């Protein structure tokens, strides 16, 4: 029984010493941080939809294929964003005759889309220019020249335009600012 009491005392002493040692010594370091700041890359697409309050005609209530819309001005307006993306990508430029000219076609289905869109745009432009020529009693060629000048003037910096470098010598160039 005495042995049991001694053993208990020794165990208590050792435990106390260990406890003292643990209390007296620095605790081991646990590094929860990173050597470099945490980097978070976020890519976000935000779609903003505008809804006008005005009641629209039934024909325009739902998206209508551009080619079937009666008014060339409306068709062109619906097509503007496409033409703008083509211009941004230098696929098309403004030609000397007031029409959009394809400069390069992307591969695949998108290339086809570019070509068809440009064809439709030019058909509508021609229709509008014919109307102007008829109204003003001048030739279509004259109106085309006039419109081409206007398109060149209205082109943004970097967009492709066809300019006359010498009499009857035309060259494609990116518009300068």
């Amino acid at each position, binding site marked *: 029984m005495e042995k049991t009491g001694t053993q208990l005392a020794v165990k208590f002493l050792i435990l106390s010493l260990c406890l003292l040692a643990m209390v007296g010594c620095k605790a081991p370091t646990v590094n929860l941080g990173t050597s470099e700041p945490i980097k978070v890359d976020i890519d976000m697409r935000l779609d903003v939809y505008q809804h006008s309050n005005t009641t629209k005609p039934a024909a325009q209530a739902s998206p209508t294929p551009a080619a079937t819309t009666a008014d060339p001005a409306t068709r062109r307006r619906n097509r503007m964003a496409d033409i703008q993306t083509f211009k941004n*990508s230098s696929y098309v430029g403004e030609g000397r005759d007031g029409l959009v000219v394809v400069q390069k076609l992307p591969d695949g289905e998108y290339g086809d889309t570019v070509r068809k869109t440009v064809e439709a745009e030019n058909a509508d432009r021609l229709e509008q220019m014919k109307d102007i020529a008829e109204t003003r009693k001048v030739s279509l060629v004259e109106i085309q020249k006039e419109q081409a000048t206007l398109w060149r003037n209205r082109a943004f910096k970097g967009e492709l335009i066809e300019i006359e470098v010498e009499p009857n010598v035309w060259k494609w160039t990116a518009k300068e600012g």
Partner: protein
Amino acid sequence: MPPWAFYLLPEPLPTPSSNNPKPAKRKKRLWVRLFKGLAVSLVLIVVLLAAGGFYAWHSLPKIAKWAIERSLPGAKVELKQVTLTLPGRITVDELTLHSRETGEQLLTLRGGTVTFDFQKLAARELTSIELVEPSIAITPGFLALFGPSQPNDKAVTKGGGGWKIGQVFSKYGELRITGIGPKNLAITSKFTFDLRGIFENEDQTLTFWDVLAIPGQGPPVLSLDLVTVVLSPEKLKTGKINSLTLDGGALSVGERLLALFEGDDGESEASPAQNFVLETVSINRININIEDERKIASDIQFALNTSLSNLPLSQAPSALGEEIQHIEIANLEILSPYDPLAKVLSIRSLSFEFSLAGLLRREIRSVQVTSPSIYVSPDLFWYMEDAQKRFGGQAGDSQSGQPGWMVKQFTLIGGSLILGSGGRTNYGLPLTFRTSAQDVSLENLASLRAQAVLEIPSQQYKFEQYQLEFTSQAGELRLAYPPNQNNLVGTIQLDVIRWRQYRAADAWVSVTFDQSGINGSFGGTTYKGYSSGGFSFFFNTEAPWIGWVSGKGLDLRQLTNVISPQNFQMTGPLDFQLQVDAQRALIQRIKGNMQTTKPGRLKISKLDEMLAKIPDTWPGLKKDSTRIALETLRDFDFDTCVGDFWFVDSQGILDLALQGPAGSRNFEIVLHSDDSAVGQWKKQEPNSP
């Protein structure tokens, strides 16, 4: 001895051898003889008178010629026929007076009639004198012949000692004055008069028409439709003429008129006629033409209407010359040289002050232009180009050494600009202008344009419809600036300009209107930075225009506070540039890019609302991770921020890329418009340049 003398001889004395005296019978015989003698004498006298009368009857022209030449010693008379018609009419045919000295023709009469009453002849009275188609050449020789000292004048001017004439008239006559007054000046006129009651002091009227003053060769400098002179004999004696009235006609003011008065120092001896005083002078509807090589000046015409009183005849030209004339032209419109329906300039009122003498000196005392409207369109610049060609750049007559035109005082008030888009639709611009200048020389068109600075007065403008408001300082509007350019340049300084919630200070706008369109540039302090840009409006029916703006060093904090104060905020200086393509008020395309030049911070404040709304019921881990994610998204310190955007008709893309120590934030904001059909651009990733 003639046989009839026998009857006058005395009876022979009785001879002594008769011794038979019969005294009574002898006496009777004496009386018979005496009677016979008287009778014979009477017959003789009658015969002589008849013979004399017969001779005179057939020699009336000679007698008349002799009588006229006797009364006008300096004249040589040609007379075709004189007819005496009893009881009291003498008719003269084709009378011509020549100067005996020079031979010049002074007066011709196709005919004339003098009527008289034999009973009143002794009292020196004539019933009437008619002059048929007199043609009078008034020259120095004529004046010498018929001058005031000539006794002929007594007939008209002095009733007492001369002939008294009941009526003097001429239905049609012609007058030509040469060698009197200004050198080389010839005056021609037609006239009529009917003078009655001269000796009863009744007012007399002389009427002239088709009066022409011709200096040397060329067209007349003065033409008068009708001139009426009213005079009364009594006043005439005191050197006064009742009235002189000029109705209708034209006066050409220019070199030829000036030449007439050159060398006239006013001290030359005045003729007696020039001492007359005109009690009333009325001038009505005399069109004044400016003689000038340039068509625009020669096109200027105005009517002279004035009245003067107690004007000495000798001073009439100078008094009339210095009389200030006022002319006001209302609602003047200048039209396009190519489109008769397109206006380039309209003026509500154009007021001139000048004197004829001033015009001769090419000087206009004042010009006031009230409420002019300049229609800015291609027609304006075509007009300017056309005017430039016509003037040849020179408005003055520098080649001939003549002075140019000068306006002493020029004033323009209430001017406005009206923008024409190439069609017939006009838009008024919110700019008024005015100007005032002294001694504006019109000698040189270029210098005139340089002087034509129109002041835009300081004003506050508010356009609620456009949410636009600005306060301008004084600005200016210039024609043809720099010189030799057919344009119109306007510059205004803006103290404050506000569009919606955006503000700029110390701004300026300069606009040049020319044949191709309207080109403008502007600049101003914006959010601690500086923005500048430009725009071009093209003259086209659709009124297209483009614009571009670039800014440097804009404070993003201020800018984002204005754009979306509750939603997000960025800091750091921003540079940007953008281009706009538009038609009328509709912006069709916008394209641009932006970048920060120093590190900054992005804070999306809107996420605070989401943070506040995180449900407390959520488990701790979910709640904490959501909070961390939102805070990570809310606050981002960036080193660089680059963005580009394009929008077409309310749809487009804004790409924003931020790089910072804590990673990157790449936003693609796609703006959709449900006004247009779905475009391919939404389906296909565009290759942005």
